[in-house]
């Protein structure tokens, strides 16, 4: 405990930790945002073209089985970035999260009742508008269930990135292990957990705000 106080007592250290925290947020949430867009597009393709679905979802499963450390290492070779480029982490996590979200998005779109999409078409919606204003909003609850898993998983995976030298709170773990000093490790764990909780809370709040219709129960009169 005394160690911890001493460790955090240094303003320079606190400044460094804050930078790491911000970097951690950036590295874990940017992929989340990008992959929502990608997964919605790919989920739509799976929903729309049945034959594509098997291939794409199969590929997504395979991607998901590749260990994260291996992916961080492979990406520079594949796209020619520097080994220590933090974009490697962003890209790797985008790939994971997209693989995670595509199936639920596609399933959620499949689950929109046909009479609702048919009614929309019959009222004169064009396909893109129908997708954005009818089908996608109805898939939001499922999308957010996936996002909550994805955000927690990204926040923990960013720490792994520290092993190949990218930033984030994971640096506290590598530093702590190297110098056999417990304080940074504890700070790292606590901040990672707090971050995951806060992001999850924000996602839940955002979902509630986007889907007021989903929380009222039918009061048949």
């Amino acid at each position, binding site marked *: 405990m005394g160690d911890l106080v001493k460790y955090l007592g240094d303003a320079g250290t606190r400044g460094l930790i804050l930078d790491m925290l911000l970097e951690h947020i950036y590295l874990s949430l940017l992929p989340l945002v990008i992959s929502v867009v990608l997964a919605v597009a790919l989920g739509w393709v799976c929903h729309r073209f049945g034959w594509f679905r098997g291939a794409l979802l199969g590929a997504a499963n395979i991607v998901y089985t590749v260990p994260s450390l291996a992916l961080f290492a492979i990406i520079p070779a594949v796209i020619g970035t520097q080994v220590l480029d933090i974009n490697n982490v962003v890209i790797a996590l985008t790939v994971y999260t997209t693989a995670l979200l595509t199936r639920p998005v596609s399933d959620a779109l499949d689950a929109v009742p046909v*009479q609702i999409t048919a009614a929309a078409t019959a009222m004169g919606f064009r396909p893109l508008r129908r997708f954005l204003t009818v089908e996608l909003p109805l898939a939001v609850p499922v999308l957010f269930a996936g996002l909550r898993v994805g955000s927690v998983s990204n926040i923990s995976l960013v720490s792994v990135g520290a092993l190949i030298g990218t930033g984030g709170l994971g640096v506290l773990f590598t530093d702590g292990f190297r110098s056999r000093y417990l304080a940074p490790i504890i700070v790292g764990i606590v901040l990672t957990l707090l971050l995951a909780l806060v992001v999850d809370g924000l996602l839940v709040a955002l979902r509630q705000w986007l889907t007021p219709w989903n929380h009222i129960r039918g009061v048949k009169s």
Partner: protein
Amino acid sequence: MIEFRAVTKRFDDGTIAVNNLDLVVEAGTITVFVGPSGCGKTTSLRMVNRMIDPSSGTILVDGKDILSVDPPMLRRGIGYVIQQAGLFPHRTVLDNVATVPLLSGWSRSKARGRAAELLELVGLPAELGKRYPVQLSGGQQQRVGVARALAADPPVLLMDEPFSAVDPVVREGLQDELLRLQAELDKTIVFVTHDIDEAVRIGEKVAVFREGGILAQYDRPAELLARPADDFVAHFVGKDRGYRSLSFVDASGVEVGAVPLVQVSEAVEPSGEWRLAVDDRRHPRGWLAPGTTVDGPLVEDVLKPGGSLFEVGQSIRGALDAALSSPSGLGVAVDAEGAVVGAVTATQVLAVIEGLRESRG
């Protein structure tokens, strides 16, 4: 006006859903497509707003070949109501109703204003506008479905079994409501149902379809019941079609006779005949059987429940049913306020029916 000219729909699997349909739906009428399940009613309907395109033949709406119109634009001018209403669960009732005006580029506030008018038109309280569809009963959802279809004031309305999923009492209310609306709005309505009673109740013209998507008969309901074109139609319109066809004969020829009355809560003399008990507004309360002794003021417990009532000016079917269902054999006639006017016997009604048949030759 909607015109089907030699319209055939063959699906990819070879099913012929509609077979060489020639039919004209007149402007400003309710035309009902009726027939057993799978006979091509929905397919015929959906070809009108191009949810399905015909394999051959032509469909004209107000003289214009619909294949020449961009489907989304065509559809914004054609209201569409389906079973279960198909409301958007993520939009409030008001926004559901405002859908087509918004699609057509109205401002949000103008579209919502129009939607509020429509809720009132279909008889829903304004505060329901803020609710979501799950918070409504089946009947209310169906009304919202109708309001949504009418929002952009389309000249044509397509309705596919809109009332099939609600219970019979609510359904009858919705049918009455539709007839009331139509009297006001004068739309060209195509209404699909598998229920022949619903068809003859609301249709000005009824098209009976048979298996294979063939039009078996297209006629006024009274004609359909009186002169079915063939055995299929005769069978489809049902066993008691003779009785049901009386719905289209008005009862003005039946002379309403006097009926002995007694007053509830007052003393009653003994008598050997059936007497009708009424309250102080002359509303019927039940029958007092011959020879019933009443001590003191007449109480309702001693009365036999009455039969159905018929309102003067309604169909002869109501008059006959009133007579047949009454314990005294006297069918009670009431005025629009429900006050007793008199009574008729089944014999009287039948004599009028016979007379009409003879005069028709």
